[in-house]
């Protein structure tokens, strides 16, 4: 098969892969968002239950179609945002996720970015389509991580076109 490199995962990645925390669809979620593309083999879905008065995440869960680090990163994010305000959750960076995971192999950094991108997509979706009131701290422009998720989806489309794949 094609070329490979060893992926020395941290203990934490393996731990969360073995026993993912907050896994599964949430039927009573306030908001749901998904990022990534099946062409990249890399998709994350987040479900957030939001206390709308306090603007706090009271419960969250994830689903993931992806590699071990993708699953671990998504799970780690749901742990990190527990009981956080939406603003606090918004400010979590891919680096924070990677650090919490004990570091990701360089080639897998995009898993952390995708997880953060999916989370920000969910938060933006909440303010734009549910609350319909955008707070000051939420940037009008898409963030780097949101763009990364979009770029990955766009790239997947391009590659699929190049290699004549259907998505």
């Amino acid at each position: 098969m094609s070329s490979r490199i060893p992926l020395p995962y941290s203990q934490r990645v393996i731990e969360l892969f073995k026993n993912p925390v907050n896994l599964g669809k949430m039927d009573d979620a306030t908001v749901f968002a998904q990022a990534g593309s099946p062409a990249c083999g890399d998709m994350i879905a987040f479900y957030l239950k939001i206390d709308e008065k306090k603007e706090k995440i009271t419960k969250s869960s994830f689903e993931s179609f992806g590699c071990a680090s993708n699953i671990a990163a998504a799970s780690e994010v749901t742990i990190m945002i527990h009981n956080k305000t939406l603003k606090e959750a918004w400010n979590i960076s891919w680096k924070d996720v990677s650090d919490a995971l004990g570091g990701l192999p360089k080639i897998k950094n995009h898993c952390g970015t995708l997880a953060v991108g999916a989370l920000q997509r969910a938060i933006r979706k909440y303010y734009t389509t549910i609350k319909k009131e955008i707070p000051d701290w939420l940037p009008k422009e898409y963030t780097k991580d949101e763009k990364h998720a979009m770029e990955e989806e766009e790239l997947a489309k391009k590659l699929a076109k190049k290699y004549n794949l259907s998505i």
Partner: protein
Amino acid sequence: MKKVDGLLEEHGRSKIEVYVDWENGNYVPKEVFEAMKPFYLERGFANPAITHRLGWETYELYVETKEKLVQPLNISPQDFYITHGLTESNNIAIRGVAKANKKRKKIITSSVEHLSVIHSSRFMESQGYKIEEIPVYSNGIIDLDRLQDIIDEETLIVSVQLANHEIGSIQPLREVIEIVKDKNKDILVHSDMSAAFGRMKIDLNKLDIDLATFDSSKILGPKGVGGLFVKEGVHVKPLLEGQLSVEILSPEVEIMPLIAGFAKAVELQFENFDEHISSLTKLRNKLLYGLYTTIPKTLINGAEGEKRIADNVNLSFIGCEGEALTVECSMNGIYTSSGSACSSRILMPSHILTAIGRRPEEAHGSLLMKISRLNTEAQIEYILETMPKVVTRLRKITGSIEL
């Protein structure tokens, strides 16, 4: 470099372990190791090109070993050149042939060749050559009509493997040779036979082929040694510049322990050959169809029946991502590999699965298992028991995500 102690500790070690990743690495049977040992410790360690007693002794052993090595192929040892493995053999077959034959400037390969063939021909494309790829049907077998259409007087070489290393499809090589030689006898035919050798009978003497690639580690021999058959009269040049010795297609390749190990591996692989291959096929079918029938939403990648090489199992489990599959298998003691993007450096799914028309999510969920005579029926049963649990757990993580 990062240490992986923590990973290994958290990973744990399964009580039952089954190695079915023979495509990507192998240990050697004890007999192979024993055949190699004296060349490290006692004799045959000198350079066979040097004129002293130990050199001559090594040369004698070298000649003897090589005779044994090529015996199942029915060729003269002089037409079999030792290389450092299939990657080098394939590179020489494309680039070394181009170097020695400058008139024709078109190279035809199949779309499912080993990357050492694909990348070699892409390199030649950068040198002004025209490259054409023969497409394959969904079972991985090449479209012979297409070959007929694209072959022309400009064609230097046509390279089509005998069996695919990833999905096991056996190519109609005899027909390929017929088409090529009907067009023009001077057009060369190369075949990467590394995934087929030792699993089916190959009589190179009866096949009008110009070049063929072999590799020791694909038949449980040591890594780092292989061969290239070059028919007498075909011009090829080495790719590495250096001092050539007894072997003239690759410098510093007279590594006697490896050559002896390769020869021993050949001998063992061809012992009771018919029986060996029929029991391997039986075991493979048990695994391939066992997984296919017990796990829903599963696809078989590659050809079936007579058109599939005896040791190959390749399936796609829809709703699972391949890298996660290999990790989850590993935790259950099953060592295997995937054609998914995430398990590769380039983050693109295997070009072979793409060539047979697999959708991305199908390619990403692929798992390659190769079996050898070192696998037992009990191990295959363990895989059959374990895989449904592995797939179910990963599908649960994918949950309601629509692919």
